[in-house]
């Protein structure tokens, strides 16, 4: 199915095409993203801004267009992130769960093969992710975290740019219909 470059809304459910992935892709890609996040910034600190696990969650949720699948991927990736950080288990888990759910819900209605839309989604979900984490940390754990609005916007934009390229690569791992 091909779309024109200007259409980003789907006219009907028939136009939506659920992307399918092999099981090992669903396992290996999030694991690689987590590994990237814990290993690469150790040698390249300037890459610490990348939230690859989040981008991967958004991608799988959006492409599979299944809210339950999206939230489960988000929950697992988030819990793994929690396990490898000093956070209490569940902080990233809740945030990524919601990101996965909403991303899948959005994916049902939009043409998620559109590059600009992917850029926008990645940016918005990054911002949502950071904001929700900040809210939860303050509300549930009484942590006095500062929400740096400007830097979050800039880093979100950088993540979105990376997401577009990353999603192009991940498209190659989709099963052909």
């Amino acid at each position: 199915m091909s779309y024109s470059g200007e259409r980003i809304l789907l006219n009907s459910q028939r136009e939506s095409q659920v992307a399918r992935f092999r099981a090992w892709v669903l396992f290996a890609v999030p694991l690689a993203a987590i590994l990237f996040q814990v290993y690469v910034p150790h040698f390249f600190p300037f890459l610490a801004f990348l939230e690859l696990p989040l981008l991967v969650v958004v991608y799988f949720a959006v492409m599979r267009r299944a809210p339950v699948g999206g939230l489960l991927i988000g929950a697992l990736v988030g819990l793994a992130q929690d396990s490898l950080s000093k956070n209490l288990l569940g902080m990233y888990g809740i945030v990524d769960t919601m990101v996965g759910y909403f991303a899948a819900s959005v994916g049902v209605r939009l043409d998620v093969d559109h590059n600009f839309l992917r850029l926008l989604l990645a940016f918005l979900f990054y911002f949502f992710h950071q904001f929700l984490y900040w809210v939860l940390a303050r509300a549930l754990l009484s942590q006095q975290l500062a929400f740096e609005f400007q830097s979050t916007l800039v880093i979100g934009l950088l993540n979105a740019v990376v997401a577009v390229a990353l999603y192009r690569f991940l498209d190659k791992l989709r099963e052909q219909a």
Partner: protein
Amino acid sequence: MESFLNRYRNITVLLLVIFAQLLLLAVQVKNDQDVHLIRVWTVTAVTPMARILEGFRGGSIGFVRNYIMLHDADAENRRLKAEVDKLKIENIFLKNELNSAERAQALQVFQAHTPSKMLAATVISNGAGSNSKVVFVDRGSADGVMRGMAVVTPDGIVGKVIAVYPPASEVLLVTDPDFAAGVVSQKSGARGTFKGQGTPLGKIDYVPGDEKVAEGDWFYTSGDDRVFPRGFPVGQVKMVRPGQPFQEIMIEPAGMQRGMEDVLIVVAGVHQEIPDKPPVTQPVYIAPPPPTVAANATQQDGAVPLAPGGTEADKLRQQYKAIGDAQNHKFGEGEPGTLPPDFTKLGQASAAPKPAPAATGPSAPPPAAAASGATGTTGARAPASSSPTGTRPPASPEPPPTTRQTPDVRKQSPSLPITEPPAKRPASDPGKKPTAPGGPLASAHRVAPSGFVGPIAPPPSRSAVSRIAGHASVLVKKIPHSWKKPSTESTVHE
């Protein structure tokens, strides 16, 4: 009911998953304990891959460089080019070896000065999350690491272990907002609490307004927190604002200033004295590779011939072993107080092809020490440049640092400028004073951690130090990863 659940299936699952995680959070907060099992699974799944990646990275860098260099080789001068490339690679390898050895030296010398029992570890990865200030090290419960242990480098404290897993441990860095440690000012003795800020600078709380603290002052661990033993450098004051009841003090943590690829986990902490003077930081000196003339000269002396294969480290090891054998010394079997072999003629081999081993054997006193006639138990080392001819004067032999756990002799002689761990003197000759430029370990002591050694003596000449340091680096590289437990003598002065 069934139709209702089908209709709202997605939102129901979402609420259930979030509720489950909220419950998980609540349990952790209420019981103030972690759900260890989930973390163990994740860490056990991720850290082995991080190790593999680290090993792959280390091995592939040299290969890639080699390949790229050979890629443009001309067919006509392939042999010459290959030879040059081989030398380049060897050079890079030796420099890397020296770098690694110097890091090991710094840690090792630091450990020699510190009575606490420590375990060397390598940082293998960061924590997940962009705002996470934790790292993972490759030592876990299988190595005896426990939660709450302090993590330090020769420059200062780095963090503390907050979680332990069989293959790795999680270390909370000093820059994390959740980090806190009891500290004391080196000058005024003012006590406070160091707290991370999530930024490169930390804060010291609870220092009363009437305490004198100035910019540039050093803070050390006070030992009050029962995590860090007293006497480890914490950092230097960068900003002080007076206030009531407490001053606002910002401090630059010292432990991570020169990176932290290798760290030490304090397995059994022992309190130390806070040094009288602030620590002096010196850059790690990268010595050139050991000269080949020394190897050739040693072979001419009738020493054990070098194996045609093997690394430079192997060749040096054979040289040192040959010297030990020539002086009837068995490495690792010397009794406390006995003299180690005289390594000084190793560097003189090229200048004096026929040294007399008997004259500098274990039983013969060093000529310089005998001539000085000085009394006392310790003394400052003279720089190598003090020798007008450029050759090293006869040195008081010195055992490798792995076999030495020495007390801080400044208690015995506080005015002496100490640049290295004081050596144990033979009981039969307490008046001997080391006057040599340092022997093979001089370079090691120049990178000794500040705060545990006194002021650094004037540096020896560059050529002498580089030659000596090159040999010492290769030797230290062979030190096993597990550190030797400090002897009881090292804790006597506490």
